[in-house]
């Protein structure tokens, strides 16, 4: 459906780094009116950053801007805020709803663009005293909904709508804007049922026919193939493929998404996890963690192994350790060393001799306002009564500052945590060093099994290597079993023995870490590889 003349949108040589960490390099593509562009890639491939650049989000300016140029209708643009982008007819529907629950669909669609009637009062006190013209508001909302081709009652309160209708309301809001030309949809079908998703896809086609260009970001590859004209595959901040969608297959795209050339792979160590006894067994685990719902996970972890858990964002991999620990409501059974561990009670999880390093360092992992020695010793002190001096037959349990400082110093040295002293506050450290403090806290309880969630998220490359090395060393020295959850497949493949992939809240397969990368790609999108590398339970 490409049209002659200057393309609607052209991105030329876009690059971006966050403090020396290159996240986008040499991104080039064009988009014509009425074209649907599928943007796919693993998490961290750079899709979100690219869209943030397009919209001129604050975070981009605050971190030193970007390189390259963006052209709209052949004219160079550089937006300073998303409002400027909106004024030029570019709209975006985010993954999280940006709706007001007590307003009707019409009120949400026309939020801050309500049709108004002026009155004598507003002549004097300014146009904010205009009354709102409800009739024409309903009318405009109806038009937008009609353009979208879905069924939606403009008078219905958003709070009472099913999820799909909320999504339609969001999209209707964007297309109700007068000269909308380009619409970015970020994972719009992730929350929808299959039927709702179908309606949305046909709505997208309808919009494209009317000349609106769409950038469709999705992990559901079949939908991408079905609805898009062109598919753009991103990996490691670069565009790997820019091809017409017609004739593409899921395995092809999946391979492009994850497929690094194997070569640099450090190789699997000589260790056969399946020969070891099962140390932890999860059966039918479900976890209500917002955005990372786990539906039904059954998984065995073997003594002494490093088990990787991978998968795309929002598929539920993060929910597994969080649910097992009891930080989010969960159900199912967990057996550790033969004992059933009750869910929803973090204390019992810790008492059993397991530990968890959360992906949310600042929110869950650290006492930001307290010193490092507190951070490192706290869990061990509270759960195992270590680092305490006892008086009066244990009636008084006094904090033993000497021991606390000793353990802090030990781990500061062992993990090379860069800090002025153990008295420094946790919030003053860099991300990588904060992560090491979290690891130290977990190591200090000397766990039999350690869950580590996204250990390298948001830290620079040098620190990444150190953190991974620390994990591997800890595993080989103390024999601690490690379950590592990460969005970065390469990182999992670097240190794990086996890798389980989660898709749609379930384990879609377990592979040895040196299996074909394309097979991992297929598992991530919920398809079984048809090759011979299948391993573990499906």
């Amino acid at each position: 459906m490409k049209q002659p003349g200057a393309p609607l949108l052209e991105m030329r040589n876009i690059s971006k780094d966050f403090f020396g960490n290159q996240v986008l390099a040499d991104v080039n593509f064009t988009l014509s009116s009425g074209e649907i562009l599928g943007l796919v890639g693993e998490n961290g491939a750079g899709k979100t950053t690219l869209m943030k650049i397009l919209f001129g989000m604050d975070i981009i300016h605050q971190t030193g801007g970007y390189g390259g140029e963006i052209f709209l209708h052949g004219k160079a643009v550089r937006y300073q805020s998303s409002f400027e982008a909106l004024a030029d007819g570019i709209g975006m529907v985010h993954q999280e709803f940006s709706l007001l629950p007590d307003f009707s669909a019409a009120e949400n669609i026309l939020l801050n663009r309500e049709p108004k009637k002026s009155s004598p009062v507003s002549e004097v006190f300014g146009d904010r005293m205009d009354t709102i013209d409800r009739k024409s508001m309903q009318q405009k909302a109806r038009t937008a909904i009609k353009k979208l081709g879905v069924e939606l009652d403009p008078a219905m309160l958003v709070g009472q709508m099913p999820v799909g209708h909320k999504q339609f309301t969001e999209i209707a809001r964007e297309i109700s804007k007068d000269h909308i030309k380009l619409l970015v949809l970020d994972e719009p079908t992730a929350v929808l049922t299959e039927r709702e998703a179908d309606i949305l896809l046909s709505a997208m086609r309808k919009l494209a026919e009317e000349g609106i260009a769409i950038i469709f970001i999705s992990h559901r590859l079949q939908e991408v193939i079905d609805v898009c004209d062109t598919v753009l595959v991103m990996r490691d901040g670069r565009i790997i493929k820019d091809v017409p969608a017609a004739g593409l297959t899921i395995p092809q795209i999946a391979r492009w998404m994850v497929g690094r050339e194997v070569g640099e792979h450090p190789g699997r160590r000589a260790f056969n996890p399946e020969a070891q006894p099962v140390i932890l067994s999860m059966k039918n685990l479900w976890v209500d963690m917002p955005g990372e719902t786990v539906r039904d996970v059954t998984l065995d972890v073997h003594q002494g192994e490093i088990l990787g858990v991978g998968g795309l964002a929002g598929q539920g991999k993060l929910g597994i350790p969080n649910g097992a620990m009891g930080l989010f409501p969960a159900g199912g059974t967990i057996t550790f060393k033969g004992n059933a561990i009750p869910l929803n009670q973090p204390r019992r999880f810790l008492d059993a001799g397991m530990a968890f390093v959360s992906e949310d360092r600042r929110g869950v992992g650290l006492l930001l306002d307290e010193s490092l020695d507190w951070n490192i010793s706290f869990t061990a002190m509270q759960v195992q009564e270590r680092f305490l001096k006892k008086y009066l037959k244990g009636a008084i349990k006094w904090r033993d500052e000497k021991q606390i400082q000793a353990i802090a110093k030990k781990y500061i040295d062992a993990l090379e945590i860069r800090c002025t002293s153990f008295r420094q506050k946790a919030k003053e450290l860099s991300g990588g060093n904060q992560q090491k403090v979290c690891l130290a806290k977990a190591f200090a309880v000397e766990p039999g099994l350690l869950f580590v969630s996204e250990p390298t998220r948001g830290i620079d490359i040098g620190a990444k290597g150190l953190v991974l090395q620390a994990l591997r060393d800890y595993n080989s020295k103390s024999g601690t079993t490690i379950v590592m959850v990460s969005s970065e497949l390469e990182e999992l493949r670097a240190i794990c023995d086996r890798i389980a992939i989660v898709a749609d809240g379930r384990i879609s397969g377990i592979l040895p870490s040196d299996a074909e990368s394309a097979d991992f790609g297929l598992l991530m999108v919920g398809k079984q590889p048809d090759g011979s590398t299948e391993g573990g339970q499906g």
Partner: protein
Amino acid sequence: MIRVRQLIKSFGWPRIIIALFLLSLFIIAPMVGVKVSSSLSDTIARFGMNGIMVLAMVPMVHSGCGLNFGLPLGIIAGLLGGTLSIQFGFLGGSSFIMAVLLTTPFAVLFGFGYGKLLNKVKGGEMMIATYVGFSSVAFMCMMWLLLPYTSPTMVWGYTGSGLRTTISTEGFYLHVLNDFLKVQIGENFSFPTGMMLFFALMAFIVWAFLHTKTGTAMTAVGSNPVFARASGINIDRTRTLSVIMSTWLGAIGILVYQQSFGFIQLYMGPFYMALPAVSAILIGGASVNKATITNVVVGTFLFQGILTMTPSVMNSLIHTDMSEVIRIVVSNGMILYALTRKSEATR
């Protein structure tokens, strides 16, 4: 220069201004004929009277329950203990000890219920604490009328029932702490050793508690509740414990206050007692979620110093008693400052 600036920053401008103001009052005092020795003596006495009620802020701040605007609830427990001790006919020093003992079960009970309530309203503690304090004071107004007290020193003479609005502690525990090992220097200066020792004891107990395992857990709950939960701490139980401690300290605080002041003030007496204590600890450098014993000592001294000095100095200086206005502006201004600070608005 940079170090000086950092020092100022860590101390906070409001505190420096208040400290300088107090200092200037002490300097001006002799010039306008106010005796510094007696002023200092007054300040110290008032410090001892109010110190423990300020201390009652600390446990709740540590556990993240915010400033204890519900202090009147603790005060009511203290009032019950004090009046019961008199009712049972204890005299002198033993009446104070009995008052403390009788107060304790009430304080624990009230604190427990209050703590449970605050656990249900996490995030909105301060406003609700204020109104819990107010409602309990109003409720007790009815109770003071109805409870079957009979001691003739306490009930209204003409009806023989219902407690009086103020009851003298003379003959009971008046000055039992103040006069213990009291040091008199010259005519105008006396140091209430017993009361100061008692304050020191309470401060030590709180300090020591914060160094135990449970105390450490309490600080962690206030600092980051999710972290604490992920370390196996029962957040609600820890918070309830902190509220019980705060309530008990408030109760003991009012007993110490009464023994020095000489009167038990019932009915609407405890109504506005939370605000001075809250602003004192804030003046001492505490924030909505961080407080130390040092904050208590510094804050109580500065706040009570201003309260003592302004009326006498101002009166002699401009022949107008503006102390009430200054008290209102300073104490509430301090609370506003604490409530609006960015770093604390994150919670």
